[in-house]
């Protein structure tokens, strides 16, 4: 009922609005002018942001989408080198790039691994972050020291940590294998065996991701009123029941947001994979973004169109994920 009456009411309002303002050719200019005259100040305030976002996000995005429907590459785009001016000679090829990518088994292989990588990284770092946050939320000696220590991985630039991990993983001289050797265990080819390499990149990313989860969860935990726990205790709830029925629901607003953000980050986590294994051995640890990078920057001439198409596909996948995720949350009554 409400759905049916909605548009009609708007229509009616518009009709009266136009009538009331006398003979105007269309209703839109009138409305625009009206909103400009009343809200010009707001528009003026917002304008710089709109322009900046348009320039640094909108334009590249639009251009990327456009390029993905052409055969543009490094050799046929317009460029000026010294006195030479080379005109653009690329042309539109419609959706051929997308078709080629979707027909190629490589894309689906990489997508499968990317999903495995994202899910396992987010799940593990979330679980570990939650456990640590719960432990740190108690009153214990040297709490601030532990907190500092656990946040440290976040404070170190990612490339520094990743290179350090690479040294640790080194098959012949790495610390990890030296330790194993001391225990009489054979050296593990951390980065040279496809399965171990996958485990290694996930381990490093979890290590890097836990501090973020930890901080967010700690904040969430501290926003849960202590009275709830007291009441639960009075009712005779066991610690597990308290965790299950007070802590978890209380954390949900934080947790859902954090999981969404972290999924997107992990999905696009270029540096960890690129710096740790370069996608290797073979292409075992290559996720979508690192593969797109390789396609567009390693071959020559650089394939701008193909890489743009990969980028658009990645964007679509992530948007789809975000929409589905939000819808699922809304069904659970979450406002986000």
């Amino acid at each position, binding site marked *: 009922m409400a759905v049916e009456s909605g548009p009609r009411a708007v229509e009616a309002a518009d009709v009266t609005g136009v009538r009331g303002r006398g003979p105007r050719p269309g209703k839109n200019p009138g409305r625009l002018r009206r909103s400009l005259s009343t809200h010009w100040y707001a528009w003026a305030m917002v304008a710089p942001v709109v322009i900046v976002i348009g320039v640094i996000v909108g334009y590249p995005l639009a251009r990327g989408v456009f390029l993905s429907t052409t055969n543009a590459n*490094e*050799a046929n785009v317009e*460029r*000026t*080198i*010294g006195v*030479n001016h*080379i005109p653009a000679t690329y042309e539109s090829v419609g959706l051929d790039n997308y078709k080629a990518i979707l027909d190629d088994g490589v894309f689906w292989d990489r997508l499968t691994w990317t999903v495995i990588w994202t899910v396992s990284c987010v799940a593990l770092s979330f679980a570990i972050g939650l456990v640590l946050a719960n432990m740190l939320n108690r009153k214990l000696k040297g709490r601030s020291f532990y907190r500092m220590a656990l946040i440290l991985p976040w404070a170190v630039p990612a490339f520094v940590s990743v290179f350090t991990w*690479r040294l640790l993983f*080194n*098959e*012949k*001289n790495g610390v990890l294998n030296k330790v194993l050797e001391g225990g009489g265990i054979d050296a593990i080819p951390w*980065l*040279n*065996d*496809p399965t171990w*390499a996958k485990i290694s990149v996930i381990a490093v990313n979890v290590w890097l991701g836990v501090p973020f989860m930890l901080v967010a969860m700690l904040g969430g935990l501290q926003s849960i009123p202590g009275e709830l726990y007291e009441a639960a205790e009075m009712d005779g709830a066991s610690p597990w029941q308290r965790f299950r029925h007070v802590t978890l629901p209380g954390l949900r607003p934080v947790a859902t947001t954090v999981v969404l953000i972290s999924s997107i980050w992990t999905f696009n986590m270029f540096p960890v994979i690129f710096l740790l*294994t*370069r996608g*290797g*051995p*073979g*292409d*075992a640890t290559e996720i979508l973004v690192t593969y797109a990078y*390789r396609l567009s*920057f*390693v*071959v*020559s*001439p*650089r394939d701008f169109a193909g890489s743009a198409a990969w980028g658009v596909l990645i964007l679509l996948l992530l948007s789809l994920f975000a929409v589905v995720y939000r819808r699922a949350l809304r069904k659970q009554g979450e406002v986000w």
Partner: protein
Amino acid sequence: MRRGITATALVAALAMTAAACGGDDGDGGKKSGGKLSGTVTFWDTSNDAEKGTYEKLAKGFEDLHPGVKVKYVNVPFGEANAKFKNAAGGNSGAPDVMRTEVAWVADFANLGYLAPLEGTAALDKQDDFLPQAAASTKFKGKTYAAPQTIDTLALFYNKKMLKEAGVEAPKTFEDVKSAAKKIKSKSGKTGLYLRGDDPYFYLPYLYGEGGDLLDTKKKEITVDDAEGAKAFEVMKDLVDSKAAVTDASDGYNNQLNAFKNGDVAMALDGPWSIEGALQGKQFKNDKGNLGVAPVPGGSARQASPQGGWNLAAYAGSKNLDASYEFIKYMSSAKVQQQTTEKLSLLPTRTSVYDVASVKKNQMVQFFKPAVDKSVQRPWIPEANSLFEPIRLEMQKVLSGKTSPEGGAESIGKAYGKLLKDYK
């Protein structure tokens, strides 16, 4: 430095003569009114052990042309290609002169990034260049670079370790395998370090079986023929039989460390690693312990890829006249002689090989015949891109994820996508 005062004096004398000659030729007619001026930015790609020498040499240009300032920038080899492309394509921040790998010249020239050098001061005494080095500077009939140094792969070996095991320097990969067995039983060390992360090191195995990446004359992809698969088989066999160790990452450092610390007895490497190897504990006090032999052969022949570095001028350089002069200077006999003396790198000028100090250099004595016999790579714009598919499949094959045949086949397929007009 370590070659004594006589040599140094001789070098100095020759250098001055060469410089004087160079100067005269250069000022001959091209420039309208007198002296060069401005700044020449030079991107050098030499490694850590080499870069100090290169910087000094580059700065030496300022003495010849006091009006010109040389801005020396060392760009790591791994990043140089992408960095130059970003800068050149974006038309900002590109250097005036770039040290380009031999396989990059055609690519950069094809994209319009390089200035043709015919009729400029940059090309000096072209007849003096080794023909195969000069071949890598040409694209579609024009010359886009001057050869600076040439190299190839060889087998580096630890003389003491081989002697202890009672084996000679191996001539084939088959010999490597049996030698490795003896080395292992004698000292427990591994025979060979096999680079599993760098496609360049696949080439000796491929050539050894009589194969090649492409047939540029017939426009045919040949890497996926039986020879390509056989090459992978040989590599995998070396690793599986524990005659060789390998890595999927950090291969350059791992190999050099393993070799100079005596963890492996042999490694395939090029002249660029001589300085680094000699600093390790196996060779530091006993330089004679470093043995160098031709790359081991496969079942068909013994051959290694031609490598090296050229000097090219960026087409958008604001100071082309000075850039041309700088290229001429850096590829001159005098400078080449100095890089050989300091770094044991191989000159690209035949005349330099007649200089006493170069003649005496052991590494040159060894590497020159190897270079003469080295296999030219396809000098096409895609030459550098040919490596990526190999890297991918090499790691898959060595880790057992793909069969040697499957690996070779996949490379062939990737080449088909890359080279539209090839069969």
